[in-house]
């Protein structure tokens, strides 16, 4: 199951085919517990996580400043979304988390220089179905042909 999720990440869109990502699957309960304690945004008791890291050094080598500073974040985010959708399709609950202490995660997972933890996806079997948060209506965020021209909603 986890490999299906990893494959979904591996096939995410990526600028210049940089593929500037590394995925660390965390299953060891002690390591999960350490990550939880060092991540203020880790809520609940998800027993598994995938740490999505960007490879800044390689991205710079192949993609210059744009590769290092922008595509790494965009590409890792697209990989994360693919993985979240795959997890959901497999019946898992998952949540992307950015509120972790980077230095702590680096230390716990022995992440080398040049590799940056970007997001942690925590996942497990959900025991609840939370209500969706409020979202801006399409009329506020979608335009047609030019900025500001409100998207005409279909009737």
């Amino acid at each position, binding site marked *: 199951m986890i490999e299906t999720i990893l494959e979904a990440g591996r096939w995410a869109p990526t600028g210049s085919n940089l593929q500037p990502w590394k995925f660390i699957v965390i299953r060891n*309960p002690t390591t*999960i*517990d350490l990550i939880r*304690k*060092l*991540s*203020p*945004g880790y809520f*609940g*008791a*998800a*027993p598994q996580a995938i740490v999505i890291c960007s490879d800044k050094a390689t991205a710079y080598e192949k993609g210059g400043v744009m590769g290092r500073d922008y595509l790494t974040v965009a590409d890792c985010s697209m990989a994360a979304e693919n993985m979240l959708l795959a997890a959901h399709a497999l019946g898992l*609950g998952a949540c992307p988390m950015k*509120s*972790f*202490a980077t*230095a*702590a995660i680096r230390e716990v997972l022995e992440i080398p220089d040049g590799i940056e933890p970007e997001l942690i996806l*925590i*996942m*497990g*079997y*959900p*025991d609840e179905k939370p209500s969706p*948060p*409020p979202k801006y209506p399409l009329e506020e965020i979608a335009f047609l042909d030019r900025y500001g021209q409100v998207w005409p909603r279909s009737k």
Partner: protein
Amino acid sequence: MRTNQLKHDKLTGDDYLLELVAFLATSARGCLDEPPSYGPFRLIDALSRLTDLPKYAICLKDDEFLHKIKADIDEKKFSVMTNIEEFRIMLDSIVSQVTKQLKARAGA
């Protein structure tokens, strides 16, 4: 989420204190970069976690008042991301309850 991984029932007071220390230290670091509203969120979440300390530190008495405010906090704390006014009302309510409790215990 369902799990059998967490071992909180085996924690000692010292373990739990260190967990709180980790939460506060990492929260402090995060607050430099995170959205401003996460500051009060981390503080009130820390308070919720702090109220669990008597479970692990046998020198502390179980305290019904702490259970009550923890429940109130946990029910509304995530509103910081969806409804800041609701979050504000919850914080005001917690402050009010703590004040009344302090007054009562002081015999005022």
